[in-house]
């Protein structure tokens, strides 16, 4: 089935296989190699000079603040992923199983709209909503609560991450769950499976691939985001993306910033790799 022609080049297969190779080789591999090479450069007279030194790496790895930031970023991105997946689930479930297909399509299209509005502008809107003199605290004040400090805290950062990731997670979860085999769900219900158990033992396993993909995207987006922890979290504490930007203020230290970037890249790549392996692994038939 797969390698039909042994000696002739399979033009059909190559038409689909080659475009991405060519494009990425031209426009992606080049920058990445440059970025890796850059981490070995030296900065002289505020100008990057080509070199092959490990000093950037040893310096960065010796800094406590680097490891503190790394740990914090992994933690807060994981929390963000758990929050987003959990918060989104009831909504995605409802959209997938309790709404008509037409309504579901409208809902998904509406959720794409935030992607077309500036993430920066939406983040700035949160200032007025969350600030101590803002909308939420004003409303809470009427019923005698608060005022609560929400900005410049971990809570603010998480609100920012939700703004970034929630629409995408809801969309991916909904699409996944809407397209699983309904007959299997029905069969489970007919066999007497309670609703919650059906969700846990039938629907989620059937949606495994899509759910893991959604979680991976959420983690990657949160891990690499600069806007939420900076503007809504007040850099309390700084995450790795903030550190990258900070490092460049050390007198053009882009090589050291590249070190942080490569560490981030490898972390995310490992996460994505493990996730995809889990997602696409075919269950072994007994």
């Amino acid at each position, binding site marked *: 089935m797969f390698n039909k022609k042994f000696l002739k080049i399979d033009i059909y297969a190559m*038409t*689909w296989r080659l*475009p991405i190779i060519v494009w990425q080789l031209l426009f992606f591999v080049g920058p990445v190699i440059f970025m890796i090479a850059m981490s070995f450069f030296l900065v002289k*007279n*505020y*100008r*990057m000079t080509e070199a092959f030194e490990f000093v950037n790496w040893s310096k960065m790895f010796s*800094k*406590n*603040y680097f490891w*503190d*930031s790394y740990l914090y970023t992994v933690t807060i991105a994981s929390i963000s992923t758990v929050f987003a997946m959990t918060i989104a689930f009831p909504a995605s479930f409802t959209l997938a199983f309790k709404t008509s297909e037409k309504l579901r399509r409208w809902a998904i299209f509406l959720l794409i709209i935030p992607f077309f509005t500036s993430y920066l502008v939406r983040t*700035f809107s949160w*200032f*007025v909503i969350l*600030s*101590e*003199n*803002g909308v939420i605290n004003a409303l809470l004040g009427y019923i005698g609560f608060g005022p609560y*400090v929400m*900005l*410049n805290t971990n809570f603010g950062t998480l609100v920012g991450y939700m703004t970034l990731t929630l629409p995408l997670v809801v969309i991916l979860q909904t699409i996944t769950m809407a397209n699983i085999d309904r007959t299997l769900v029905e069969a489970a219900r007919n066999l007497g499976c309670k609703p919650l158990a059906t969700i846990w033992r039938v629907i989620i396993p059937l949606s495994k691939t899509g759910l893991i993909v959604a979680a991976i995207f959420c983690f990657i987006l949160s891990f690499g985001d600069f806007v939420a922890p*900076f*503007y809504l*979290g*007040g*850099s*309390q*504490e*700084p995450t790795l993306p903030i*550190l990258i930007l*900070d*490092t*460049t*203020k*050390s*007198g*053009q*230290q*882009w090589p050291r910033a590249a070190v942080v970037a490569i560490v981030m890249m490898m972390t995310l790549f490992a996460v994505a790799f493990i996730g995809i392996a889990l997602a696409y692994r075919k269950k072994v038939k007994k």
Partner: protein
Amino acid sequence: MSNSMKNIFKSPNRRNLLKMSGAAVLTTPFVSRAWAATTEINMLAWYGHGEPDIVAEFEAANNVKFVSKYYAGGDNMMALIAQSPPGTYDIILSDGEFVQQLNAAGYVEEMNAADYPFDDMLHEDFTKFPGHWSEGKLYSMMVRGGHLGVSYNKNAISAEEAQSYSCFWKPEIKGKLGHFDWHLPNLGMISLYNGNGSSLWNLDDAEWAAVQENTLSLRPQVGGYFDYGGTFNGLKNGEMLAMCGIGDWITGVLEKDGAPVGSVIPKEGGIQWTESYSIGKGTDKADIVKKFIQYMLSPVGQVKSAQMLAYPGFCITKAGRAALIEADPAEAKRSHQMDGMANEPISLINDGRIHYRDIPKQQSLEDWNDFWSEYKNA
């Protein structure tokens, strides 16, 4: 299928569609100023320097159009120039301390000192400003400046308390002190607080350790680290009641908007930021760029600079200040740019209460920045 898809953007249909929509946009009343055969000058600057309130008159008089690229932070500016083909940017506006970096990296052209009004400067220091000259040659022309000190919310801190940086440690503002997210002015202020005076940038090991120690003691007070937008929001919303590392260039705008904030130079001294124009290396428009820099140093230009909508700065020439007092006495008064006023910028410099912002002498920028990252993580 993929082949025909790739052909889609080669077919005439798409091009026609783009042409039609382009024509539709251009026939609207908001026609691009570049339609006439004007010279385009590429400017790399902080926000606001290429806006109509500054350049429109010059553009009309000289048939030029400024195409501006705005950066936030000299480091982004440097990186952009480094990786762009030489001659991309004709005129570069940068902070004083970045001029040294620009020159060291060879990104700017030499300038002719005779072209500029060095004999009309309000202060002698401006004629030989550090970093702008190298081996007797001029590479950058100072055009405006401003002062950094204690910025505070008037409802939370009194004017007397604001006369010293020690108000930042006031227990009542715990969690409400903000930092402008750049190590240089913040650590400079702590250095002044420690009493280092004019050698605030020249710290030996003991003094540097003292600055670090005092900075760390401020950590419990800190509510966050902000950039331009975050600073404005924090001060306006009352989220932050005091900010370290900024001055009138931010609070001035907020004051005009009605917020109860202000900036003063405390008794320990303040810091001056300076902005300067340079001619980009490899440009072919050096003459018109020179003409524009001269325009910005003329009385007309100096008044525009003082009134800049984005953020205010003070005039550096005598003729400029005189013109400002005549054209906009209210602004001259608000920014203390009249002889004899308390907090008048030049007298502050003369009294030794103002120190020019500079890069650290005995430590590297990396050392200061590393500490700043540690401070954030503390």
